[in-house]
């Protein structure tokens, strides 16, 4: 296949591009040429700044079997890309987000769950519209332009090598350190994530099979609890890591922020629940598969340990060691006092 990748040099892009190349597809990259230039010498490189008035000109007069639009949150980018590509590509795969859904406090949304109101295309509120609303507008623009050739992928938390958000990474890093670990809520509190390789390899398959439609894209395959995640990560280590499970009422009293301080976990009813309870039957039927968790953990940590020391020490998500100790100490003090 002839594949056009918009972006392609960020987090998920390189995984998608290398898999597509390995599958024998011919790949063209379109981006500003600033992030990791020369990463894929075997791919054709087209340049353009999608914020510029004529930014998509390099795509004019060309045709591809499929285009992957990876980095887009600004609906205007879709408008401009579609203006050039409509009629010249058979399929447009747009990477949206679980954030497209309305009311995150509800469990188990499938793809028919109501979405946010689409962000305005222009006007004073266009730029400041929330992420989810922009994603919805982008989805609708792709669907309007490409019809049955539109494929909308809504991932949740994307994890693995290259993830600079450190949300998933917090847990293996913390568990690798060992000792007593603050674990949030209960074993069965829902947790979902998707390995960046599982996501991107599946997206390439969606293109190979010309699969259109809207898909939630998270894992693992079956309903999963935070206990399964943390215990699975622990299995990759042979240290003295010990989990202390602290109920959410106590965490709330300690003003512990779910998701940010306790990644991949949400308070019941919090606005991040939908990130962990998406129904994925449709994606499974369309061929989404999963690596073993241990593979994700080990590859993520190989990548993590290759990062500069300063980055390794300053994770962007999770709880500081001091704060964790304080919360644990408070928890043990209450347990002693209350029993």
């Amino acid at each position: 296949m002839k594949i056009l990748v918009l972006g392609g040099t960020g987090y998920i892009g390189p995984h998608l591009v290398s898999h597509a190349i390995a599958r024998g597809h011919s790949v063209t990259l379109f981006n500003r040429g600033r992030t990791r230039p020369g990463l894929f010498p075997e791919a054709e490189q087209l340049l353009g700044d999608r914020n510029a008035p004529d930014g998509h000109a390099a795509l004019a007069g060309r045709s591809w079997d499929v285009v992957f639009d990876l980095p887009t949150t600004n609906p205007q980018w879709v408008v401009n890309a579609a203006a050039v590509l409509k009629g010249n590509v058979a399929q447009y795969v747009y990477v949206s987000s679980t954030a497209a859904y309305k009311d995150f406090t509800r469990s188990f949304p499938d793809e028919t769950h109501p979405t946010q109101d689409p962000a305005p295309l222009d006007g004073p509120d266009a730029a400041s519209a929330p992420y989810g609303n922009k994603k919805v507008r982008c989805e609708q623009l792709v669907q309007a332009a490409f019809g049955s050739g539109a494929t909308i992928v809504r991932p949740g938390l994307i994890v693995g090598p290259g993830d600079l958000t450190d949300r998933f990474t917090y847990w293996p890093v913390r568990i690798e350190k060992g000792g007593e670990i603050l674990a949030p809520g209960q074993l069965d509190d829902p947790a979902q994530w998707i390995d960046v390789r599982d996501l991107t390899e599946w997206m390439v398959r969606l293109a190979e099979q010309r699969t259109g439609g809207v898909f939630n894209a998270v894992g693992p395959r079956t309903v999963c609890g935070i206990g399964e995640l943390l215990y699975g990560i622990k299995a990759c280590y042979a240290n003295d890591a010990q989990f202390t499970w602290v109920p959410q009422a106590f965490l709330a009293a300690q003003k512990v922020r779910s998701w940010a301080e306790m990644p991949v976990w949400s308070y019941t009813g919090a606005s991040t629940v939908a990130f962990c309870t998406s129904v994925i039957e449709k994606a499974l039927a369309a061929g989404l598969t999963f690596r073993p968790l241990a593979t994700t953990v080990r590859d993520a940590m190989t990548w993590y340990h290759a990062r500069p020391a300063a980055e390794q020490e300053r994770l962007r998500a999770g709880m500081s060691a001091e704060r964790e100790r304080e919360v644990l100490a408070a928890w043990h003090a209450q347990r002693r006092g209350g029993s």
Partner: protein
Amino acid sequence: MSLDRRAFLKTSAVLGGAAGLGLPVMARAFTADGVRPPASRPETGAAQPKPLRILILGGTGFIGPYQVQYALDRKHQVTLFNRGQTNKALFPNVPRLIGDRNTAGGHDALKRGTWDVVIDNPTRNPAWVRGAGEALKGRVGQYVFVSTISVFSDYSKPGMDEQGPLHTPGAPAVWASNDGANYGPNKVQCEIDATAQFGEDKVTIVRPGLIVGPGDLSDRFSYWPVRIDKGGEILAPGTPSDPVQYVDVHDLSEWIVRCGENHTLGTFNATGPKAPTNIAEMLYGIKAVTTSDARFTFVPAEFLREQQVRAWSEMPVWQPAMGPTLGFMQVNCQKAYAAGLTFRPLADTAKATLDWYKSRPAAEQEKARAGIAPEKEQAVLAAWHAKAGR
């Protein structure tokens, strides 16, 4: 008492290696030339040790080949002593002394040669310890006897160390018995004879718990990786926080060789992991190396008992964390940890076990020796859901 005492003794008696089951002992985890796929090894901190002359009694069963391979990798001179019947093609370049320890003069081949370390793997008959002791007298620097935590007579207390109460030593009339009830008592007598024969200043007694990993023909641990890999709803025993202990055959065997290198003497409980681990950690840890759709339904010990689900044999690596089995999976092994027993990650053990299991002939895979039958598992789950109303 929450568990039939005799049933428990019968099941607990098989701890400590395939010898306790009277199994045909083979080590298909190893190929004929003794080469095995590389496995990760924990850092032991040891530089290249001084080469030792190591005599391994047995050495071709479950744990023996791991000792041999590790000792060879560390440049020791290894000699095997056995009947020459099990896994004959294994380690063709390792000298082998032949003898049948059940016959008169069966230890005669040991009457020549001197050894820095002798490792006695398969012995559950005190007469074998005496035979080896008499044949080797005065020519052994260290005798490592692989015993079992089944020597203990009471598992009701968590945290039991090496001073826990032992079975009454087996009487000579039962030494040759293969009945599981005599296993622990005979091992106690073996420990006594080891010290009597070789002297306290030369003896190491290693008491492993459940030894797991590639080559384990008892299928006890293997049940879980295999079952989890199969997927679907899985009957999980007790509560998620029930303690479990097990030791990877690599970790145990390699540490035993290091006990020789470091001249580590004394008696050691030897199981793991180092940090207290529960059944949920084990099951989810195993699941983490698969792509399975497995889901666990934890069913309380009381309900399992009502359904006549046997702990240990039908629900391997688990005993109710109460009453006479409260301490069964909470044995104190701090002494062994201090003496250098280290552990692989569970993910490595689970993956290696599953890969090995899948490499076995289909007929063997179907006749798994441990774990609940699939039909019974489904019936128990259905009964549990009916009772729980969900």
